[in-house]
Every structure is written in structure tokens, then in C-alpha cells.
């Protein structure tokens, strides 16, 4: 089975080598909405701790994650909620 969540997680691990990473499929909360599909796997939440985010503002951090996941975002993934922090920062996941 083609698991979008696993592919997303693989990509993020490869690109960012995160200290911590959590990818949650919350498509069920959006069932029936615009962009949702019967099989789910369209809406994800990512919590990631990686050195790449140090010194970057919110917009730059999100862009880094969006760019890494660009292929999936142009296809299967409809919405991606991102919480990206650098190691040692307060408010980490």
C-alpha cells in the first residue's frame, strides 16, 4: 500500500536528519471537506526538531519543510501543519 505518511516521514528524515520527528495523519478530522479523499492521507501535522531551523524565522522554517515535501504537496497532500524548531529551543514538540 502506498502510504503517504511514511513517504512524508522518509523525506523529512532524509532532508533534515531531525533529532525528533512526528508525522500525524489527521485527515479524519477533515473528512468530507474540500481536498479530503475517502482514503484519508491528505491532512498531516508535522512536529520536527532539526538543526536546519536554527536562526530561521517562522516563514523560512515552513518554507524549508514545504520545499522538502513539494512533490507530495502538489499531489496527495492537501494540508500540512508544521511545527519546526531547532534543537534546544523552548516550545519544542
Amino acid at each position: 500500500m502506498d502510504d503517504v505518511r511514511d513517504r512524508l516521514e522518509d523525506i523529512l528524515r532524509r532532508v533534515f536528519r531531525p533529532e525528533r520527528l512526528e508525522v500525524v495523519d489527521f485527515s479524519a478530522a477533515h473528512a468530507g471537506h474540500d481536498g479530503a479523499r475517502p482514503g484519508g492521507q491528505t491532512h498531516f501535522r508535522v512536529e520536527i526538531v532539526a538543526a536546519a531551523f536554527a536562526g530561521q524565522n517562522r516563514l523560512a522554517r515552513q518554507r524549508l519543510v514545504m520545499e522538502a515535501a513539494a512533490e507530495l504537496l502538489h499531489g496527495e497532500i492537501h494540508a500540512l501543519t508544521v511545527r519546526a524548531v531547532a534543537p534546544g529551543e523552548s516550545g519544542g514538540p
Partner: protein
Amino acid sequence: MSETIHERIQRQIASDDVVLYMKGTPVMPMCGFSAAVVQVLSHLGVPFQAHNVLDDPELRQGIKEFSSWPTIPQLYVKGEFVGGCDIVREMFQAGELVPFLAERGIVVTERA
């Protein structure tokens, strides 16, 4: 010659201080993420111009390319791309959104 979609977006973000590209309308948002941004702006009493991308497939695709940002909603302030729902929500919760708007001359009538 007719205006290209990028020219149209450029004109839209120049003609209003706060511009939100969203799914649905402020009164009837069609997506939870769009609704969340509307809620934050309304809570702060920030006047904004909304553009419904669901009414306009060209705008829906065009704004993604224009901002190099793959999802809707998208918020612009004084012609500058601020971000999507996560960023607006985080800025609001961190108490950064009001000063961000105030620095750009946007009147916030209700403080969080």
C-alpha cells in the same frame, strides 16, 4: 492585452493593506484553516480584503506560484507575504501579530 494572474495578484496585494486568500468567504469559510485565520483577524478587529480562491481556479493556482507556497490560506500585509494558517496562529499566540501589524501601520482595535 489582458492582465496576467500574477499582475492581478500584484494589484490586489497593493490595493489593500491586509489581504487574505482563502477558501470560501469570511462569513462562510469552506476550510478550517481559512476559518482560523479569519477568526484571528476578526478577533483583532483588523480590516482585511478576502479573495475566495474557490470561485477562481486561476487565482487558486496563481497565488500558489506567486507566493511559492503550496497551500491556502495565505495572508499578505502591505504587499508582503506573511504565511499561512500555522504562522498566523503562532504569531498570534506568541503575541507577535499585533506588534507586527502595528509596525506596518495597521490599526488593531482589540488587543488579545
